[in-house]
């Protein structure tokens, strides 16, 4: 039997190949499911929970759940988007996100997702954690204030670059963030290179090339032009 199988995402038929996750099938079809830790090139990490959908009435992470024929999946409902907005607000107050002085602004997946979900304020009290900046590498700056613990750099450095430069570490709400695996903990003491896959994978403004500032004018940056939900295909 070679008939294409489908499931329903907010009432729309989404075709899928056996083995694809709900997220993979939706993305291939151009349908947007909010997400932060999932990246089309890597296995799902399943940690941010932004991609939570309701499958036949029950909550599940669309990046880790296999698509099955006939599933009925709720995605952009007010109920789910409200919960997603709360997750985003927690990420914003647990780090230090000062977008006006962030080089990633306009090209940042966290920021663009917050716009998409109409996050007007952080809602919660701010934590203002004390997090360092690592400028020890000649070509790359690390600003840990903005890490959302998606682990994409960890995976990219291990699986693509074969270097294992990053790991998730630290304890507690505010201590946990990405760390550098050299003995000193400094990026300058690793063989990290600007050409590494891990150097361009960070969805937010942690891993940034040095000596590049406001290269793209405001108004022409990735998410100035169209909302993240309208750029699904470009990501694949």
């Amino acid at each position, binding site marked *: 039997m070679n008939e294409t199988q489908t499931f329903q995402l907010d009432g729309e038929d989404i075709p899928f190949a056996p083995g694809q996750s709900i997220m993979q099938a939706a993305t291939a079809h151009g349908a947007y499911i909010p997400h932060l830790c999932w990246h089309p090139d890597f296995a799902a990490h399943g940690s941010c929970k932004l991609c939570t959908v309701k499958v036949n009435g029950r909550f599940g992470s669309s990046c880790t759940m296999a698509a099955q024929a006939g599933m009925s999946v709720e995605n952009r409902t007010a109920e789910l988007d409200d919960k997603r907005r709360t997750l985003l607000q927690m990420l914003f107050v647990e780090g230090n996100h*000062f977008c006006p002085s962030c080089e990633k602004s306009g090209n940042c997946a966290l920021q663009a997702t917050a716009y998409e979900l109409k996050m007007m304020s952080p809602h919660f009290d701010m934590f*203002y954690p004390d997090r360092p900046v690592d400028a020890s590498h000649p070509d790359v700056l690390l600003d840990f204030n903005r890490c959302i613990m998606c682990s994409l750099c960890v995976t990219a450095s291990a699986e693509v670059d074969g270097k294992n430069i990053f790991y998730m570490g630290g304890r507690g709400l505010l201590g946990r963030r990405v760390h550098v695996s050299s003995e000193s903990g400094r990026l300058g003491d690793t063989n990290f290179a600007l050409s590494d896959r891990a150097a361009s994978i960070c969805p937010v403004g942690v891993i940034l090339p040095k000596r590049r500032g406001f290269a793209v004018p405001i108004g022409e940056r990735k998410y100035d032009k169209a909302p993240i939900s309208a750029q699904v295909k470009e990501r694949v």
Partner: protein
Amino acid sequence: MTTAMNAPVNLAAPPPRKLRVATTSLAGCFGCHMSLLDIDERILTLLDLVEFDRSPITDIKHCGPCDLGIIEGGLCNAENVHVLREFRNHCKIILALGACAINGGLPAQRNHLDLRDVLEEVYQTEVGLSHGGIPNDPELPLPLNKVHPIHEVVKVDYFLPGCPPPADAIWKLLTDLLAGRTPTLGHGLMHYD
């Protein structure tokens, strides 16, 4: 005022009452107020609909009963908190205008530093400065240990992000509010930077 039941009634609708608006800049740079002025000639339309109470535009020093209070900037000293409370007590609706009011913004980037260290560096040890000592005039409001966004101190009804929010976003929000609609921005007007 009471009217006798059968007194003649003026059937022409009275002109709608102008809404009273107060504005202030707390720990902000006045950039948000500049952006408000950037609505250009639309300010004339606005003035048909609103009148300003306490505001840097009027120089009225204290806030009377208002429909809308617009707050730029976060809280970096005791006076900021005092003014914010005055606004909340007198305004039916409070709008947090811009990044600093919403998350502390640029001033909050001092929050991971010790306040004494900051003052000592700025007033005493930094090369090239006059080293006059940390100012201690009783007229000066005491700085807070950390800079805070305004929603940590009072209830805030609406938030308009941006550093500063674009004039078109301010215009959209004000006209939505004046028309009694829930304000919406949409892509292009919603910016955190």
